[in-house]
């Protein structure tokens, strides 16, 4: 394989919009020059409130392997409470990035094996004028800031497009605020080579 595939797994609850968030990031990655972008939701019978996850792969080449992600580079968690039910870091590459929506400060979330980023997305989303519990636009800002993969302007543009008719400006604002307020931890020691 000429250049690597960046594998991002999104964890959320049914109805929370993890799939929409991943779709927006897929679109933004594609518009940022990643010719290969592939987003595959958990297949089957999602129910509101039940833990779900979705696989997003991005690369500069065409992606032909549609199988679910087993060893992600990045894990994004839309609801930190889910970590009590689901092993969200399963398979996460050593030195990989874990992005959390949590009201807790970064210091309380650090992990010996992974780089951690946190943002209180619920609070931010309400500040941006969204209904309580709408976190999928805000988490995109946190993801963008922590990963450094895609520019904020591209992300907010894709958010406004996806949410056209559903408070596009407020959703973009949530991402912008989250981008600013995301705290990113340093690389764990020893620095693993696998982060890319």
């Amino acid at each position, binding site marked *: 394989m000429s250049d690597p595939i960046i594998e991002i797994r999104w964890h959320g609850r049914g109805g929370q919009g993890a799939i929409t968030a991943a*779709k927006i990031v897929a679109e933004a990655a*594609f518009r940022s020059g990643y010719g*290969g972008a592939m987003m*595959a939701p958990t*297949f*089957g019978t999602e129910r509101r409130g039940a833990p779900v996850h979705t696989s997003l792969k991005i690369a500069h080449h065409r992606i032909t*392997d549609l199988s679910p992600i087993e060893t992600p580079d990045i894990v994004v968690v839309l609801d930190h409470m889910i970590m009590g039910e689901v092993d969200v870091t399963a398979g996460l590459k050593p030195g990989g990035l874990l992005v959390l929506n949590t009201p807790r400060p970064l210091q309380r979330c650090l992990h010996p094996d992974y780089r951690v980023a946190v943002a209180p997305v619920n609070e931010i989303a309400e500040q941006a004028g969204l209904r309580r519990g709408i976190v999928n636009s805000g988490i995109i800002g946190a993801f963008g800031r922590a990963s450094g993969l895609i520019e904020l302007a591209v992300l907010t543009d894709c958010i406004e497009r996806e949410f056209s008719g559903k408070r596009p400006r407020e959703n973009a604002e949530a991402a912008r605020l989250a981008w600013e307020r995301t705290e990113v931890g340093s690389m764990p020691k020893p620095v693993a080579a696998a982060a890319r």
Partner: protein
Amino acid sequence: MNTIESGNVAAAMAVKLARAEVIAAYPITPQTPLTEKLSEMIDRGELDAEYVAVESEHSALAVCIGAASAGVRPFTATSANGLLYMSEQVHWAAGARLPLVMCVVNRGVGAPWTVWNDHQDAISQRDAGWIQLFVKDHQEIMDTTLKAFRLAEEVSIPVMVCYDGYYLSHTYMPFDAPEQERVDRFLPPFHYAHTLDPSHPENLNSVTMPDTRTDVHGETAPSYMDIRHNLHREMVQAIDRLEAIDAAFRELFGRGGHPLMEPWRCDDAEFVIVAMGTLANQFRDVVERLREQDGIRAGVLAIHLYRPFPNDRVQAALAGVRGVLVYEKALSYGNQGPLYGDVRSALYDCEPRPAVENFIVGLGGAGIRTGELYRTARQACLEIGRQETPDDAPHWVGLGV
């Protein structure tokens, strides 16, 4: 226009570009979002078509049969048990030579219930007399659906466009949706040779006798067997026609070139993996690894046209290789994989005859791990042709207990 959407939306966009005039469908997972999208398009006035809400898949295809007979372009889609529920009309549509297009969003067949992907649904209808095309990604869903309308209408045989449930239907990936104006140049208005004409009343598909009969004009009318022989003969002729349509498509849109099957790294291959749908694409990564890590010269042949089966082209593509590994998501219970049987039969006259192995994977959405495909393919490449008595029983990949 480049876009990122789900496979179901890609199919709906193709149906819209084809200017389908009647949509009749009954929702079933994982097909549902496709027909929902079409109903939205009609509701918003983006697609000038009649959406007929039906009470079953049997009725859905019956409405399409009626629409085509009346001279308008219909479309339907289904999955799994829905396809089986419409099966009687599936056979009818072929015998009536109706130029229909149906997307089959492949899903395993119950019991036990599964909503996840395999190919058993479409394969169970392989002998119904429909042309069956399997695709690997969203671009192929778009392009193949457009080509399917033209093919169906040129040869007057119904066409199934089969794509993997979830792996394609619910997955988002980039693809290009062509402009309407160019699609209009590619796909002429609907045509059916036996369109109903009120000024010339006819009974369509009336009862035939075991032998020929004399019709009201005193002419010899064909028997059932004549009509069915004609269907078979013209279905085989449809292979060349599909190639011609693909060439016309390529000229207009700059894409295509592999309408029957797509070889990948097969030129110098000693071993070729044969598969259909997304599985064939997944094997590209496996082939890379076999070549890089093991020095095994492997390739993959994706079968696009499953019925009519392009026997001579399959034979030509595989003649001279040492081993052929057929991986498939369907089974002829009590025997072997259907594609395996087809490939082996196509290779019977080859001298020397390649060894052929059969692998059953991913039934009911069973996880298909790329690493597992690699391990099984590698082992087969190392062992193939070495067994004292080759065993034609399929190997099962991914069993849990």
